[in-house]
């Protein structure tokens, strides 16, 4: 990772309160091109609110959201957003679910199908194009959801605990798979999790968030070289970082 990476996303000093309860307290986040950054913090610490602000669904009380130096505060439709739930439309086949963002942008269904077809191999969903979501396993559904997210915006992707609903074994597999897929896609990723191991395993940098109201307690660089595999979990560097984080939380 070079220091000359372009700045993709800059969240500048945002504040937000709901019913006079402060939820987000002066949070600033930077995301560079091709970078994987995690927001790590306890559940209910306002991480999802930060994502809602970045995606433009919620307006911050103060602060700005800059995407490639353009002000996108309170404007939706720029970054893609994936939730813990797969939120696939049960009445649409996988290919149409994945093509949904393109259809929303006004592309014809048939054309949209053609455009997404080639990505099924990358996302490991070949042969499932014309299945309904209920015919897929949980891990596959998450992959389809991620694919749909990628189809919307390929450069900045917000992932809100995407593997939170999966069992430990599937989760581990999905993490390795995600690292693998990211090698072929040029995406900058902001990732929410409350799982320390997951954050270290996946990220280039980690922002540690406090309990509500969410503040940035620390920013940690994960200097474990890529490509990473499951073995790094037992290395001393991994455990050093983990210990460091646990002391802060």
């Amino acid at each position: 990772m070079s220091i000359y990476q372009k700045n993709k996303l800059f969240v500048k000093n945002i504040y937000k309160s709901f019913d006079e309860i402060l939820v987000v307290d002066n949070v600033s986040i930077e995301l560079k091109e091709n970078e994987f950054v995690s927001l790590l913090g306890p559940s209910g610490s306002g991480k999802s609110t930060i994502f809602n602000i970045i995606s433009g669904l919620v307006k911050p009380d103060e602060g700005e959201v800059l995407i490639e130096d353009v002000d996108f505060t309170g404007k939706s439709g720029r970054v893609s957003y994936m939730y813990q739930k797969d939120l696939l439309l049960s009445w649409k086949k996988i290919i149409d679910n994945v093509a949904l963002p393109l259809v929303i942008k006004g592309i014809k269904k048939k054309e949209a199908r053609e455009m997404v077809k080639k990505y099924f191999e990358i996302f490991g969903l070949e042969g499932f194009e014309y299945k309904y979501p209920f015919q897929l396993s949980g891990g596959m559904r998450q992959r389809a959801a991620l694919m749909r997210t990628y189809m919307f915006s390929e450069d900045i992707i917000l992932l809100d605990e995407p593997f939170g609903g999966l069992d430990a074994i599937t989760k581990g597999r999905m993490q390795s798979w995600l690292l693998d897929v990211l090698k072929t896609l040029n995406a900058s990723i902001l990732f929410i999790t409350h799982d320390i191991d997951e954050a270290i395993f996946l990220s280039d940098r980690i922002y540690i968030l406090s309990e509500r109201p969410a503040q940035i307690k620390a920013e940690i660089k994960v200097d474990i070289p890529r490509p990473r595999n499951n073995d790094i979990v037992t290395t001393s560097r991994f455990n050093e970082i983990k210990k460091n984080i646990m002391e802060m939380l």
Partner: protein
Amino acid sequence: MKKLESTGSKINRRRSLKRIGDGIIPTAFLIILILIWYIIVENGIVERFMLPSPIDVITTLYEILPEIRLHLIVTLAQALYGFVLAIIFSIVLAILMDNIGILKRALYPLLVISQTIPILVLAPLFAMWFGFGMLPKIIVVALVCFFPIIVSLLEGFDSVDRDLLNLMKSMGASRLKIFTLVKFPASMINFFTGLKVAATYCIMAAFIGEWMGGKAGLGLYMMRAKKSMGIDRVFAVVLLVVILSMLLFKLVSILQKHLMPWSNEE
């Protein structure tokens, strides 16, 4: 993939076994009830002119079938017209109410009130206002069928996952796109629930509408039979109404299966 299919077929087999069980139990119970009815009448415990035996009812139905063909067609036509009218009207109104908050708050209580007025009071009023033709009966049917459809549709619109709507918004989808791509299809399952309830009501509603007079219809025929003490014919017509209602219910279920292939496994 293969593994997935084999567990799938196992589940299907278990399901079909369960389905057979689901069919046998109510059928057996119904047969027992009819048998008891048969024994009571055949042994003279209840007089025949008070309660015809099940066999009498079936033979009477067979005998009067050519005679009531026209009545049957009229009732069926009124029921279907009313049903379709109710579907169209409730879809339009549900969409309006869902999009215009003030309209929903204003109309919802009125909808509930409209259902508390006994239809037997309204039917003669409609006959006074709209004459003795098909129109007042169609209105009665539409009024009865309208409520279950619109309530289930509104509930469907309300129960769409908030995160899903937010996701659509974050993708920059317009209100119209959110509605056509997500809200309406997501409510299909509720819509069909309402349709099924309405389907079982609509023949009966036309039947009641006909009691207020007219030129033809099963309800009219039954009133005449009642007046001439033809209790076996009354029963035969009631049986016919039950059969028609069940057929209509089945028709809606089949339609649902074909239009919503994704819901079969859920």
